[in-house]
């Protein structure tokens, strides 16, 4: 028997309990998911702490990078929401960075031979996490929308300037589209991470299986290896793109909350 064994593509998503913790009756155990949330957040905090340690007129490399991120999200918020979007900038920035780093760190290869608990884990590949972030965005949209516009927020579902007989048709569509927003937001990110990692794992699994089969099969193993390399490159793009899409959709929904009464 050879030692090569391809793990199930689902294994990478399994939650492994590291330290049992509970808050009352609620289980808040430290898991591999929690560990990677802490690693990602810790990395972001260390990076920004170093980048802003000596904020200077002439920035060093770290500060320049932080400023590029700042300007990127700042422009995004201003272009989408306008001047009033300024108050949401820290939220959108935190959201974008948290998702981006979670996506990117999930692509770090796991060193062979490590116990399962130490495997790389993509926290955004779990629906409950992306759904929680999406619900947070929608909650902010609804709370701010009513606080800012009062009942005028309902105008969001009835755009003005249409013939009256269109409203019975349009209002339900708008309501359904509004209610589906958190789901589409959550599932888009989750599904992209989930599918990407499964494809990566499948390609990698083929490589392992073919090498394990030996002989001519081992030589053919180069093909899925090239495939895995290409998919890894693609996944870097997807990791950025999905963080960006989540951030820009958050901005668009917040824009609705800010300008609902103008509709």
């Amino acid at each position, binding site marked *: 028997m050879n030692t090569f064994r391809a793990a*199930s593509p*689902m294994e990478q*998503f*399994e*939650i492994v309990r590291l330290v049992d*913790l509970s*808050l009352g009756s*609620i*289980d*808040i*155990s*430290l*898991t591999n*998911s*929690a560990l990677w*949330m*802490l690693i*990602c*957040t810790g990395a*972001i*905090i260390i990076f*920004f*702490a170093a*980048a*802003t340690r000596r*904020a*200077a*007129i002439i*920035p060093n490399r770290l*500060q320049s990078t*932080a*400023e590029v991120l*700042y*300007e990127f999200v*700042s422009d995004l918020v201003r272009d989408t929401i306008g001047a009033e979007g300024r108050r949401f*900038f*820290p*939220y959108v*920035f*935190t959201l974008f*960075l*948290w998702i981006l780093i979670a996506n990117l760190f999930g692509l770090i290869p796991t060193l062979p031979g490590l116990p399962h608990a130490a495997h790389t884990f993509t*926290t955004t*590949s*779990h*629906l*409950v*996490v992306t759904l*929680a*972030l999406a619900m947070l965005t929608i909650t902010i949209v609804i709370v701010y929308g009513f606080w800012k516009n009062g009942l005028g927020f309902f105008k969001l579902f009835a755009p003005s300037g249409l013939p009256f007989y269109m409203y019975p048709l349009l209002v339900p569509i708008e309501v359904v589209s509004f209610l589906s927003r958190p789901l589409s937001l959550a599932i888009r990110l*989750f599904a992209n991470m*989930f599918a990407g990692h499964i494809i990566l794992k499948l390609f990698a699994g083929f490589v392992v299986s073919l090498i394990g089969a030996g002989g001519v099969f081992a030589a053919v193993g180069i093909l899925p290896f090239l495939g895995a390399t290409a998919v890894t490159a693609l996944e870097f793009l997807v990791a950025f793109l999905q963080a960006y899409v989540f951030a820009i959709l958050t901005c668009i929904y917040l824009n609705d909350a800010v300008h609902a009464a103008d509709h």
Partner: protein
Amino acid sequence: MSLSAVIVAAAAAAEDAAEAGGLPQLDMSTWPSQLFWLAVTFGILYWLMAGRFLPAIGGAIEERRDRIADDLDQASDFKRQADEAEDAYNQSLADAKAKAQSIAADTRAEVDAEIAEMQVETDAKLQEKLDAAEARIAEMKEEATAKVDEAAADATRAIVERLIDEAPTDDAVARAMTNIAR
């Protein structure tokens, strides 16, 4: 079979499925822990971003923007000063040129006047000398003429004395010479 027994059986089956490689994402027992740590990490990150990091970065960017604007203002100020200095320089250069030209013209006129004066003076002196020389020449001529007359009279007297052995009177000689000269 009671309903609760069905639920228990279904839950056990679901658990089996999860252990047999069902979707880990649908294992709801892990959700509270995931949500708790998401809230903790996201909350801490938001708190630090909003309170510390973003104001620091925004402040640095703002400060740089102000500084650049200030520097540009200062540069345009300096440029204006330089333009003014250049204008002043050109003005003074033109003034100096005009002044130099007027000085040159004055000097030339002065020199011309001096030359003319000297010329007049010299001319006068020369004229004076010329007049003196002419006067002397005229005097010498007169003198010479007188001496020639005298010599002629003497010669006449001597010739006449030789011819007639009688000395003619001066009047007679003079008359004769006047007649001849006429």
